[in-house]
């Protein structure tokens, strides 16, 4: 008789942090029904609690203090509980926790304090976590949707404000469009290899490369289309067009979260599919994976376009949107570098280090925007930064740190991330891209430092409000940015064990 597998067959314990979070979201959803409208901060606290529990579990697992479950594979190889997963979990949970903190007062004062906000955030987070742990294309796809759909909703959360709704609509239509490409890509990969399991794909690719080359067309096209679908999520040029509009229109607390979380998810899945699934996919006995060239071309385009258009922006949120596009480019360098098998591990670690650094910095930067934003979503122009150093010295200092970190000035986390990524790129002989990266980050100083300049050298009102949770979030982000900048080995040690390669 067919039997439903038991929990131990599934090895559920290995996926504990993600499972705890997903279950927590469902429980809070029910609890929230009984929380009166004006006391939704209870839900916020619950959410933060759930995230903390999950974060602690993930950290325990990352530091190998506790090993959950039995072996690395759970749910019949659908979920891979390795160090990579742990690190992705930690990054996204930290982001999420910060996201809850920045939302706490923001929702109150913009009159959108609703319980749904928080558990949608939890569902997104769960989506990212499952993406990072995906051992199967199906999980990649479903988790991607679990990441995206709550984000579509959250983007339109500030209803019936027109900007918010419009950006939600754009995000949704383009998101659905690109995920159709992803589905088609996955279908082609399946068609080429006969399986959706990443490990089996890897094996199939091995024999495919060794044997005849006919299925390569399907696999190549499939990989390309998957790259499109995931490239959309991480806002890589030319799939980036939604980003500025959505970031500008969406509630800032959502942007603070999604600018990082969506990237983490997208890159985690990209690494899983490309680096774990088909690192061995080389044409004509080449030395690098077939998808490497296109990836670094995308990276170069992304860095150039993102940084250039950011120069002429006058809205902070829009500027940071282009900045986040540019950063997607830097991270893509790491992904491209992973196409050379001998640097695959190094590059993977570099990507994660970058994401970790980026998480603190970018959430921090958006938190500062939340602080200066008025209740009617105005005052997010660049000019709102004028004179901030005089009226809000601490806030301005934090913003300066974030801007320096985004530029990649040494002793900030941003530099550490760039350093590792460029190092991996050089190791992978991607020197032109590394050079483009360095040049564009010099270029980026132009607009990041303009903000610092405005805060410190120009006169203005510099109004801002930092209620406690927001102040905490900004403080944590700033400290994180600096600590990782000063002690880069904290990051490199965390990432040292990470490998995506399937053994043998």
């Amino acid at each position, binding site marked *: 008789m067919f039997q439903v597998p038991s929990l131990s067959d599934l090895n559920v314990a290995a996926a504990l942090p993600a499972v705890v979070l997903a279950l927590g979201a469902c429980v809070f959803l029910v609890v929230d029904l009984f929380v009166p409208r004006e006391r939704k901060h209870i839900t916020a606290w619950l959410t933060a609690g759930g995230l903390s529990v999950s974060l602690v579990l993930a950290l325990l697992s990352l530091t190998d203090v506790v090993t959950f479950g039995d072996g690395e594979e759970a749910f019949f190889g659908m979920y891979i509980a390795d160090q990579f997963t742990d690190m992705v979990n930690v990054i996204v949970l930290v982001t999420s926790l910060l996201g809850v903190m920045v939302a706490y007062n923001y929702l109150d004062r913009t009159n959108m304090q609703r319980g749904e906000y928080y558990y949608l955030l939890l569902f997104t987070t769960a989506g990212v976590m499952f993406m990072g742990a995906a051992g199967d294309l199906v999980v990649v796809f479903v988790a991607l949707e679990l990441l995206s759909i709550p984000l579509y909703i959250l983007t339109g959360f500030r209803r019936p404000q027109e900007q918010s709704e*419009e950006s939600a*609509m754009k995000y*949704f239509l383009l998101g659905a469009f690109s995920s*159709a490409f992803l589905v088609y890509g996955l279908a082609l990969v399946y068609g080429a290899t006969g399986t959706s399991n990443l490990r089996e794909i890897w094996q199939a690719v091995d024999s495919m490369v060794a044997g005849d080359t006919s299925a390569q067309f399907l696999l190549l096209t499939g990989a390309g289309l998957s790259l499109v679908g995931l490239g959309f999520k991480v806002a890589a040029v030319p799939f980036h067009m939604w980003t500025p509009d959505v970031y500008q229109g969406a509630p800032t607390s959502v942007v603070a979260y999604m600018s990082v979380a969506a990237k983490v998810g997208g890159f985690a899945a990209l690494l899983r599919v490309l680096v774990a699934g088909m690192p061995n996919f080389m044409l004509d006995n080449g030395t690098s994976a077939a998808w490497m060239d296109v990836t670094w071309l995308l990276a170069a385009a992304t860095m150039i376009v993102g940084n250039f258009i950011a120069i002429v922006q006058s809205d902070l949120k829009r500027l940071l949107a282009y900045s986040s596009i540019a950063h997607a480019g830097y991270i893509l360098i790491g992904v491209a570098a992973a196409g050379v098998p001998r640097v695959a591990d190094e590059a993977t670690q570099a990507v994660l280090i970058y994401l970790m650094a980026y998480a603190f910095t970018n959430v921090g930067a958006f938190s500062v925007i939340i602080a200066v934003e008025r209740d009617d979503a105005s005052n997010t122009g660049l000019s709102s930064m004028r004179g901030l150093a005089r009226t809000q010295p601490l806030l301005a200092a934090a913003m300066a740190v974030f801007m320096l970190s985004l530029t990649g000035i040494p002793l900030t986390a941003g530099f550490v991330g760039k350093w590792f990524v460029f190092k991996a790129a050089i190791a992978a002989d991607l020197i032109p891209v590394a050079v483009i990266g360095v040049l564009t980050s010099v270029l980026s100083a132009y607009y990041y430092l303009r903000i610092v300049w405005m805060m410190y050298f120009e006169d203005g009102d510099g109004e801002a409000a930092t209620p406690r949770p927001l102040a905490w979030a900004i403080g944590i982000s700033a400290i994180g940015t600096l600590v990782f900048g000063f002690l880069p080995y904290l990051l490199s040690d965390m990432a040292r064990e990470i490998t995506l390669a399937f053994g043998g």
Partner: protein
Amino acid sequence: MEASEVSIELYVLLSAILFIMGTMGVLLRRNAILIFMSVELMLNAANLALAAFARQWGNGDGHVMVFFVMTVAAAEVAVGLALIVAIFRTKKSIDIDDLHLFRG
């Protein structure tokens, strides 16, 4: 499972044609609902390819993937239509060319 008269290639080709027609719909129509329906067409095309490949490889994974794609599509439809309704209430229009508050 006996060999079929129609080759799998043909199915995949058909699915590619339908997929591209869906793409065209997204590019060319201005009605948000129609764009959305075009996306559904694209997903269906992908499903057809999946089913064809499942047949080709003789395993059920493809069918399961089709199932998931359909379910996800259903979820997307729920959210998407809700969004369309919401935006219609504010703007009284579902012409996506009317959505251009942001640019540049």
